[in-house]
């Protein structure tokens, strides 16, 4: 017993050192928190003018969102919290208070996107006939490095806990003989770490969602915001899995230990597919399962490391040898599953290989891959150099094997620490989607108004959609609509196109606006045979 205690403490102190080191590293760059639901349209438009204060604002995002915090900053500088927002498809409808004062208003929003990550922003509009004053726009709450570090640490701790705890319990259940008490203790503490980290992860998620500083931690609203996030489902599932793993650890019969261990792994695999960037990437039916398999395989591999090392170090010769034999039988399959699903998910998320080094997400992935590669090298050394002699009873080989496995476990912790950084980096897939967000121009005159949506909002081939609402938000009875795009600065002559109508919406397809920059837009709307409404505006296209 005393012989096995020493390596355990040693191993734990090494793990702690690595966790602290990775926390230190993560604090340094602190990438900005932004996730991938992007605001694509708003009514009133950002930078737009409305004659009278609208009764409600409509914010359309690239995917359904949940409102977290909505505030209206009036021209007098007073801030009002807005409640009662409802979701219509991808559009958030925010009732606005009845205001009469003319001037610049700032609608600040913070919403949770589908994967649970918060997105913040503000749109500035003016009521009256003067354009909005941009300087009135206050930047949404700044990113708080301490808060982000705490979010990161809670997530990393939870992940380390469940991988080592559930994987460890499973390994102990399937390794022959009664579990080694020291291994049981380590696996139990990993499960304990997950249990402690879980409520922090949820609370910090809420804190981050509301953009509050770390000092505001004990607040009901924040916990509610955290609980409302889909990440809570994942955490809840992980907690359940950790509980099952604890049952497996303590269960008297072998069948029960194995059964609950497997159920714990399945619950964990399902739970992790409920939130996160990767699970919300299309094709979802496949990415969900890939995430599940990936995490389950990681738990099988990583979770086995610490108990195996302890068993080998404890010189419980017969059982340890058999455990090593089954480990080297099973783990190659887990590694293959990891590589397959990981490769697939990376391909979905990164798309363009250049994004590996041009985006934060890609750099995190590269770092993770480097650490995994180091783990694989160690695993290969174990397998082809040390396993056979150790199985044959070579004591030196066995000692070295223990040491290498310990290093492997430390690397696994570092991998988890790295991938927890993904919480702060939108995948290139989402960045590409944001770049393809439509450009919008809202024209409002005494005679009438129009909203043109250019998709995608960048130079090149695009489609134009024109909505012609009347002052009371009915549709303007137009007989013909012609749109003229001109870019005199780029020396491009006016491009004129007739629009065709389907169900109240006018469209132009197959249009190409060749250069980025500011284009003037002119709309000729034929209202009756002898009456035309002319609307002029500008739209800015991204390159």
């Amino acid at each position, binding site marked *: 017993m005393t012989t096995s205690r020493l390596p355990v403490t040693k191993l734990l102190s090494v793990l702690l050192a690595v966790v602290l080191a990775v926390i230190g590293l993560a604090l340094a760059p602190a990438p900005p928190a932004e996730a991938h639901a992007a605001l694509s349209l708003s009514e009133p438009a950002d930078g737009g003018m409305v004659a009278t204060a609208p009764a409600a604002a409509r914010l359309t995002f690239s995917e359904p969102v949940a409102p977290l915090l909505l505030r209206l900053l009036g021209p007098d500088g007073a801030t009002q919290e807005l409640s009662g927002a409802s979701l219509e498809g991808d559009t958030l409808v925010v009732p606005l208070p009845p205001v009469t004062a003319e001037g610049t208003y700032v609608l600040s929003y913070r919403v949770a996107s589908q994967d649970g990550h918060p997105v913040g922003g503000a749109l500035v509009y003016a009521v009256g006939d003067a354009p909005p004053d941009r300087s009135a726009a206050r930047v949404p709450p700044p990113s708080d490095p301490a808060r982000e570090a705490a979010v990161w640490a809670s997530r990393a701790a939870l992940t380390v806990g469940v991988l080592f705890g559930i994987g460890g319990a499973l390994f102990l259940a399937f390794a022959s003989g009664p579990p080694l008490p020291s291994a049981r203790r380590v696996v139990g503490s990993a499960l304990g770490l997950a249990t402690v980290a879980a409520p922090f992860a949820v609370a910090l998620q809420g804190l981050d969602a509301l953009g509050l500083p770390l000092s505001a931690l004990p607040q009901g609203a924040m916990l509610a915001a955290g609980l409302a996030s889909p990440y809570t489902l994942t955490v809840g599932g992980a907690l359940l899995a950790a509980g099952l793993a604890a049952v497996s650890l303590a269960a008297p019969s072998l069948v029960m230990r194995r059964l609950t261990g497997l159920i714990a792994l399945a619950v964990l695999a399902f739970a992790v597919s409920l939130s996160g960037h990767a699970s919300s990437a299309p094709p979802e039916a496949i990415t969900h399962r890939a995430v599940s398999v990936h995490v389950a395989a990681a738990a099988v591999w990583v979770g086995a490391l610490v108990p195996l090392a302890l068993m080998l170090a404890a010189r419980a010769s017969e059982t340890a040898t058999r455990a090593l034999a089954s480990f080297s039988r099973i783990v190659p399959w887990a590694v293959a599953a990891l590589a397959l699903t990981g490769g697939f998910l990376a391909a979905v998320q990164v798309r363009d290989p250049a994004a590996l080094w041009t985006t934060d997400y890609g750099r995190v992935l590269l770092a993770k891959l480097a650490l995994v590669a180091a783990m694989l090298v160690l695993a290969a050394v174990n397998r082809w150099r040390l396993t056979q002699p150790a199985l044959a009873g070579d004591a030196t080989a066995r000692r070295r094997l223990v040491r290498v496995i310990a290093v492997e476990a430390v690397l696994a912790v570092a991998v988890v620490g790295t991938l927890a950084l993904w919480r702060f980096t939108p995948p290139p897939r989402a960045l590409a989607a944001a770049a393809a967000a439509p450009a919008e121009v809202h024209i409002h005159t005494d005679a009438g108004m129009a909203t043109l949506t250019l998709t995608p909002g960048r130079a090149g081939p695009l489609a134009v959609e024109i909505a012609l609402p009347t002052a009371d938000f009915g549709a303007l009875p137009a007989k013909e609509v012609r749109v003229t795009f001109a870019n005199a600065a780029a020396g491009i002559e006016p491009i004129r196109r007739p629009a065709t109508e389907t169900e109240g919406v006018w469209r132009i397809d197959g249009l190409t606006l060749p250069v980025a920059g500011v284009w003037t837009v002119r709309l000729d709307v034929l209202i009756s045979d*002898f009456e035309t409404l002319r609307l002029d505006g500008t739209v800015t296209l991204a390159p």
Partner: protein
Amino acid sequence: MKTTILAAALLAAGTATAFAHATLEVQEAKVGSTYKAVLRVPHGCEGEATLKVRIKIPEGVIAVKPMPKAGWTLETVKGPYAKTYDYYGTPMSAGVTEIVWTGELLDEHYDEFVFRGRLTDGLPVNEVLYFPTVQECATKAERWIEIPEAGKSADDYESPAPGVLLQPKS
């Protein structure tokens, strides 16, 4: 080089066509007088023959009578005026609001369409009174219906409505 010249020629031709607007022959008239309007139609709809010419009579122009035209069917649309006008002692509250000539005018031909009407006293002087006009062809239409905003003239527009500058009563 050849393409450049060709492009320049085409551009010049296009510009020339665009500038040939439908206009009124007499571009100034006094309020409180009877005005003989002669609408000049310079071309069809981008090559198509004109099959219908429609003129909208603006408010304040009363007792309108179009001149029949050989080869063209003449119709008028009558409706109420916004208010009752005094026409030589007779109150007049309705009358012709639109004139429609139906026939055929080839794109390469020119023609004129004539009507007369009373420019009532209340019309704003030193301003242009516009007669929105539509040429309908087989598949297209040429709409001379743009009414310049304050501070702009018909020259700023591609398809301005024909107009007459109103002069004070002498």
